[in-house]
């Protein structure tokens, strides 16, 4: 649980850095596993399982651990208004919100830099905050 009486909200650039770290920590191994499975078995559909597993992992980490490895390394957590970790249902909503943030030309992400509580559109939809711990 995070104390929400005077939180430090994390802004656009550090969250971008966390996303870059995640693409290395999660993305690269997932890509290698996917490539290896398809190459080794010849069953292309196994690649989809790896992609789905990566999404499930991201949702699990966001909901139960407070963030993906990039956020955890940089000392950030995803919490709700009470300072608690958001749980799986809200992590799913937040993930869907991230798709929306990206689809509208990334405006949902850029909002992080301009809102008072450093929330992206996906954070506003799921009522989450990314705070420093």
């Amino acid at each position, binding site marked *: 649980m995070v104390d929400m009486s005077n939180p430090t909200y994390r802004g656009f650039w550090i969250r971008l850095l966390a996303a870059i770290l995640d693409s290395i920590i999660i993305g690269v191994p997932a890509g290698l596993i996917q490539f290896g499975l398809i*190459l080794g*078995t*010849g*069953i*292309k*559909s*196994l690649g*989809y*399982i790896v*992609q*789905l597993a990566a*999404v499930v992992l991201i949702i699990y980490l966001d909901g139960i651990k407070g963030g993906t490895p990039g956020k955890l390394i940089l000392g950030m957590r995803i919490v709700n208004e009470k300072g608690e970790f958001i749980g799986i*249902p*809200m992590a*799913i*909503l937040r993930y*869907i*919100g991230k*798709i*929306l943030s990206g*689809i*509208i030309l990334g405006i949902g992400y850029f909002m992080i830099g301009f809102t008072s509580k450093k929330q992206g559109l996906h954070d506003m*939809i*799921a*009522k989450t905050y990314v705070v420093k711990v």
Partner: protein
Amino acid sequence: MVDIKKDFGDSINLLKKNKKIVLPILLSLIITLFLIYLFLSLSGLLPLLKELISLDKEFEKQKMEYLTAKENIGRENYTMELVSYLGKSSEKSKYNSDFAAYLKQRGYDWGRFKVLLNMKNITLLALFLLVSFIISLYLSSMYFAAIAIAIKKEEMSIGNMLRKANSFVLRLLSLKIIMWALVIAPLIICSLNMGLFAALSPQNKALLILLVVLFILLFVAYIIYLSIKLFFAVPSIYIEKEGAFASIKRSFSMTKNNLKYVVLVFLLVYCINYFIGTFMSQPLFETYINFILGSGIITKSVNFLLVILFLAIESVALAFTHIFRFYAYLDFKKA
């Protein structure tokens, strides 16, 4: 104010308590896949496609053997072959033109597909599309009815689902017909007008192209507008027990106010469907095609298990999406 977070949570809880809602959706997907297999078998396409897939695998195996052979690394065309292989999903990739040349070399006769384009198969396709539509419509009515039953906390039994589905299926069909009419009518009118313009002023090609581009943009905007305004028509039929016209009227009225939230919920549902399409529907379809066209017991067994997995996941995800739409309807009704 509309509470999307609460609607999302309530939708998940309702689905957890009423798992039977998934059954009609699962059945709809299974029947669709079965009809695809049946059509491919009866039309004569299945053996041709199996042969094509088999040759594709042979060609890919040859390419892989070339690329993984140590003596080939460093050869003049190795990089080009590697880039071509890695980018094979792209239409412009040299891999596809190499494959076409390979097929020609192996004597694969594309003319056999033309032979299958006969009246019998066209009639068969039309029949299958009609059967698929009727079954899909009935099962859609069944799962919308199941959602309404669950929300109203009525008896969630197969019998009750069937009764409710039967009483609303014609209203759902009427709604679909009206929706198609609203889409197709402007399309036909504008196409006729542009055809007339092209016939009367054939020299004005630049203006015609401009008109076509403008028409496409306006038509897309119109479809988006219509989709948003009709967003609550289906929940209205099953919750309020209204007819097609009344549900359309109600949906238009509800989406008049709180437009910001309506658009947001609409976009969220669109994103959920995009997610389902990317991670579930497309993998399901490709895996199923690999299962019916592939060879080898192990490969077929793995593909079969993956089909079951994707079927289950997609059914649950689709059920959730529809439930969320119903809860959004109830929330907007209160607002």
